[in-house]
């Protein structure tokens, strides 16, 4: 594919031309023409990204589910969201600076008026134009900020929509596998096992009848010895012989039925194995969809909320009136510097990772032996979370199986979310 020329507009002021060549020729095995169409309309970067995701996937539900639940998909939007969020922060700072300038200009004008009286008309005009210019710049920045905010919300909505759609598909597929493939096979095998059970019972009952008959035959034989009349002895002897023949036949029947039984068992095992393939497939699918359903919403939308919340926390803790003049978020940079109360951190954790990974503040405080209002650095809080999970899994406080690597991943995600680092 040839390099594509993209004109990228930044704000309204600059226009630059970027020549983008996809990293590799996309090779995506998409069976559906409609999907191929969507793929073709993707940006080159998205195509490359998609091609990487689909590189080794087969037309196979489990493989596709792995793609659908791939964490990188969220990262794709997160990377873009992070960029937009950072621009929004930049705009917020610029808007804040402009607002400060406006206030400062008013203050200086007032001060001038108090000391020297009214401004000459030409200077009044100049001051008015200056103020108007600042207002216009602020308006432009605010408009740009709104557009970026919309972009951010679009991306977050997209993630929510995708998550819902993904779960819908997973449920639908799982339900259909169960309904059409697993359940009927299991029902059929169950009914065959029942029939086989009846067959077994018949064999056991017959073996027991035969044993009884043999016992009676033995008794009969001993009685023959006491019969005096020869003809009667003969008559009994003939019946006994016939009876022995029947019992011999019984043995043959048992042997042949046991052979049949073994053959049936073999067939049932084979059938069960085939049916189990559906079950295994269903389980494999379910594992993919459950394993990755823990992934959090990594959207930047909450980042905006966070900024407000942090300001509120700061206002309370510093004892000011709560008036915020700066748009700069309180939590800015590194985890070694930025502080947050344990309870706020736990709230963020729970809000971010939802109920599946919920940390109960009470047990966290008990295990960590800290005051939940105590402000700690993000790094310290992360260590407490590590200890908490270690202790919680040892003491079986909650049946959470979170591998160290996964825990680190989540800590990093939350860190990025809180302090953008």
């Amino acid at each position: 594919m040839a390099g594509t020329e993209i004109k990228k507009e930044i704000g309204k002021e600059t226009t630059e031309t970027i020549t983008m060549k996809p990293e590799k020729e996309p090779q995506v095995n998409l069976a559906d023409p409609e999907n191929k169409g969507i793929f073709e309309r993707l940006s080159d970067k998205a195509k490359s990204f998609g091609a990487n995701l689909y590189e080794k996937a087969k037309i196979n539900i489990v493989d596709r589910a792995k793609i659908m639940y791939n964490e990188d998909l969220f990262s794709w939007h997160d990377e873009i969201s992070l960029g937009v969020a950072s621009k929004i922060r930049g705009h917020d700072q610029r808007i804040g600076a402009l607002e400060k300038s406006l206030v400062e200009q008013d203050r200086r004008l007032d001060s001038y008026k108090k000391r020297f009286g009214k401004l000459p008309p030409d200077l009044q005009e100049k001051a008015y134009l200056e103020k108007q210019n600042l207002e216009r710049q602020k308006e432009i920045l605010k408009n740009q900020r709104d557009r970026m905010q919309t972009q951010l919300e679009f991306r977050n909505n997209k993630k929510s929509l995708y998550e819902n759609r993904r779960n819908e598909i997973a449920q639908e597929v799982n339900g259909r596998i169960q309904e059409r493939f697993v359940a009927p096979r299991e029902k059929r095998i169950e009914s065959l096992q029942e029939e086989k059970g009846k067959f077994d019972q018949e064999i056991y009952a017959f073996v027991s009848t035969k044993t009884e008959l043999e016992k009676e035959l033995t008794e009969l034989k001993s009685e023959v010895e006491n019969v005096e009349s020869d003809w009667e002895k003969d008559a009994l002897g003939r019946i006994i012989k016939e009876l022995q023949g029947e019992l011999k036949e019984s043995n043959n029947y048992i042997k042949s039925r046991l052979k049949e039984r073994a053959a049936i068992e073999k067939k049932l095992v084979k059938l069960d194995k085939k049916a189990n393939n559906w079950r295994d497939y269903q389980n494999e699918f379910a594992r993919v969809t459950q394993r990755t359903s823990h992934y959090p919403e990594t959207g930047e939308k909450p980042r905006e909320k966070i900024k407000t919340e942090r300001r509120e926390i700061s206002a309370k803790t510093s004892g000011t009136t709560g008036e915020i003049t700066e748009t700069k978020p309180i939590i800015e940079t590194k985890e070694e510097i930025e502080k947050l109360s344990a309870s706020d951190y736990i709230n963020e954790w729970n809000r971010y990772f939802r109920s599946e990974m919920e940390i109960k503040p009470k047990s966290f405080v008990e295990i960590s032996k800290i005051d939940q209002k105590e402000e700690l650095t993000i790094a310290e809080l992360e260590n407490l979370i590590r200890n908490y999970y270690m202790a919680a899994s040892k003491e079986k406080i909650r049946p959470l199986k979170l591998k160290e690597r996964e825990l680190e991943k989540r800590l990093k995600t939350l860190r990025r979310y809180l302090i953008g680092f």
Partner: protein
Amino acid sequence: MNVRDTTNKTNDGLKRAQDLLAKAKKANSDFVQKTDILIKNINQGINQANQELGKNQKEFKNFEKDSTNKMDKAVLEFLSEE
């Protein structure tokens, strides 16, 4: 023991032997009949189940195709900026 008693005893023995023989014959015949039906039913059930599995394989291929298309569509729409 008199002659009459001995005769009765012998007759009882014969009767018991004949009953036993009849019982054995019936047990054999019942067993064969019942188990024949059960074996037939089980084998038929197994054959049907195997046939259904074959049909299901075809159905599953279609289902798999539809499902993967749906999944692909969700992923691609998620990646698109539309």
